[in-house]
């Protein structure tokens, strides 16, 4: 049999081929550069710092505005006792906050997780004061997922997904840090906390913590730990740096303002598309109540007040997410509070 591969690939001669390649390179490069410049124009002027007039002041619902990627707020209608879930708050959005991928605040200060692209992309945990001015900036590993500030503003915690980049595979593990603003002490990863499960000191290489929530005393906290394929709710203690598992199948706990109940997401289905449902756990009776929200919620819910929870759900069109609210006692119906938003948090003080 003769050789099957002719010398020329196409009817075109060498010169013609070079001409075609050059033309194509010019055309494609031109198109690329044009599009990139267009994209630059579009994102130009997007500042990452908060406008000076944009500060923490309530009562207001703060959140990340999906369209701009910056923090915004809108009035938290309703006096204490009135269900915010029923309040009509849409439309009165004030934008101009810092650019954040995850945001949380107390009346005393805020925490902003921001992934900044670059040849080596970096993620920062940025500590902000009441004027939303930057106080401290810490480089953190990975993709931001959870942020919390204690009520006093003293304790901060954040969780990121530690990933490799394209070269590695796409499995995630979490890394949770705790920062004490009063002492300035930073725990980069809380994996070494002394953990007790079922009354016994527990050691395993695969422990992963996420979703910390602090009590009013700035010492007690709750978090999720996962090990060997199970997730547990742990109650932690900053002073003696210990944690004990309280119960299984609890993720992303969030402590109510009166510190009596925990909202969390519970895995109720093996369906990877919709595994979780929101529950509230009464810490005195250890009784769980499913909330009226029937969609799968993958968020650390935030208490707007002692009766109402807010959380993000994927938007209707699959684009971005919306902030929803639902009563914390299992009654009522979920309502949209913010369209195109995430990271909800209520700020009370004016």
């Amino acid at each position: 049999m003769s050789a099957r591969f002719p010398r020329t690939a196409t009817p075109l001669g060498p010169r013609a081929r070079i001409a075609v390649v050059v033309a194509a390179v010019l055309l494609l490069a031109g198109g690329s550069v044009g599009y990139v410049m267009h994209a630059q124009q579009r994102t130009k002027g997007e500042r990452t710092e908060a406008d000076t007039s944009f500060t923490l002041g309530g009562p207001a619902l703060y959140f990340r505005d999906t369209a701009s990627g910056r923090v915004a707020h809108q009035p938290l209608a309703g006096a204490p006792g009135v269900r915010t879930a029923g309040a009509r708050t849409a439309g009165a959005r004030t934008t101009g906050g810092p650019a954040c991928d995850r945001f949380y605040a107390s009346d005393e200060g805020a925490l902003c997780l921001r992934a900044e692209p670059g040849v080596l992309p970096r993620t920062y945990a940025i500590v902000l004061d009441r004027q939303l001015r930057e106080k401290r900036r810490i480089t953190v590993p990975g993709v931001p997922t959870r942020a919390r500030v204690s009520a006093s503003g003293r304790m901060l915690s954040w969780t990121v997904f530690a990933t490799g980049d394209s070269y590695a595979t796409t499995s995630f593990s979490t890394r949770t840090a705790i920062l004490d603003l009063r002492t300035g002490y930073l725990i980069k990863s809380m994996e070494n906390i002394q953990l007790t499960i079922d009354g016994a000191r527990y050691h395993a290489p695969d422990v992963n913590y996420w979703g910390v929530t602090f009590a009013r005393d700035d010492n007690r906290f709750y978090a999720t730990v996962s090990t060997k394929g199970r997730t547990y709710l742990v109650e932690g203690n900053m002073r003696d740096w210990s944690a004990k598992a309280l119960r299984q199948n609890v993720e992303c706990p969030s402590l109510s303002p009166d510190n009596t109940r925990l909202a969390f997401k519970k895995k109720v289905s093996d369906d990877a598309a919709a595994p979780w449902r929101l529950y509230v756990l009464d810490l005195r009776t250890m009784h769980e109540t499913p909330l009226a929200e029937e969609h799968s919620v993958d968020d650390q819910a935030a208490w707007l007040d002692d009766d109402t929870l807010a959380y993000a759900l994927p938007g209707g069109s699959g684009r971005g997410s919306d902030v929803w609210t639902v009563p914390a006692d299992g009654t009522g119906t979920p309502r949209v509070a913010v369209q195109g938003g995430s990271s909800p948090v209520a700020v009370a003080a004016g």
Partner: protein
Amino acid sequence: MYLATTGRRDTPAPPRTVGAGRRVPGTVLALGTVSLVTDISSEMVTAVLPLYLVLGLGLSPLQFGFLDGLFNGAAAVVRLLGGYAADRGRGHKRVAGLGYALSALSRIGLLLAGGATAGIAAALATDRVGKGIRTAPRDALITLSSPPETLGRSFGVHRAMDTTGALLGPLAAFALLWATADAYDAVFVVSFCVGLLGVLLLVLYVPGHQPAPPPLIPAPRRRKAFGALRDPAFRRILAAASLLGAATVGDAFVYLLLQRRLDLPISWFPLLPLGAAACYLLLAVPAGRIADRVGRRLPFLYGHLALLGVYATLLAPIGGPALLLLVPVLALLGVFYATTDGVLMALAGPVLPADGRAGGLAVLQTGQALARMLAAAGFGAAWTLWGPDPALWAAVSALLVALAGGWALLPRNPSGTPAPGEPGAQIPERRTA
């Protein structure tokens, strides 16, 4: 510098140094360039995808993992189909070109999908299908256009170019994100343009087949599909590759273990795979040349010894500066890839009949990939159950067993190995039946 070597094509050379001064076949260089350009395009997207999906669109990692894992099984089937289709119509170039084009088009799919999960899933599936169907025909083209005695070098050159693209892609993507303040769509558009250029280069510079001469021998029925499996030499190579693949824990675990051992500053983490890839890039051509000289069996086996070295280093109680652990692990990992990836194709290529080559290589690649998937799952389970050190010991034992098996299984002198100094033997016409 290597590629610019201007030796004459058919220099008669002493058998031991055959190929040393020769030029790499134009088709291999063309395919290497296509791979380089295409890998820039695809790694651009791969690099930003986790950020885009999790931060840009707010997908949970679980959903993301689900999307990502969804098509892995399908990719194996598609690869077999691609190999089969390429052999059938001798349409290696056409099938490979379709694969490259599909992957390029999938970027537009990502752009149009916006945030819709179904659209993203479809775009990712298109990309995987493209990648699946093009691999075997492309490797078959390399074997068909290279003299068998320099196949190792040809694959070395191709893989080095391919890896160069894979290294440049993420840099380009993050530079773009930085320049455009997170405009992911710009990354997709540029990736699309680069991908199109790859397709064009393939069309212009990679020879297709001429209108096939009427077959001299009536094609035996149903022989081509998986006919390679009937060949004992090929079966032994497939068995050895799968066996050794089943003892490969996966890079992700290696990096994770490194990171745990060293408690590296996290901003270093993305640099780890980069180090291994750079090492692979540097060694691919020399490893291929050595394989041409000493036969491909030994480099392939010794390459797995390098992997054993990786595991051993990770287990060794090494204190001191991080580099003491980092450098050997990354270097050994690079050696492992350089001496096994292209070398395996060079080992198997000549054993396969020319008209069943793409299909045969597809079977081999699929077998190896499935074995590696099993191994990664198994190692993950062992890690969870026993912790990292016992799991590593298990991996070491498994690899030792697999090496012994590979040693016994791999044919010492696969009949496809050409008699040296026969420049005319462009296409070994070995028949299976």
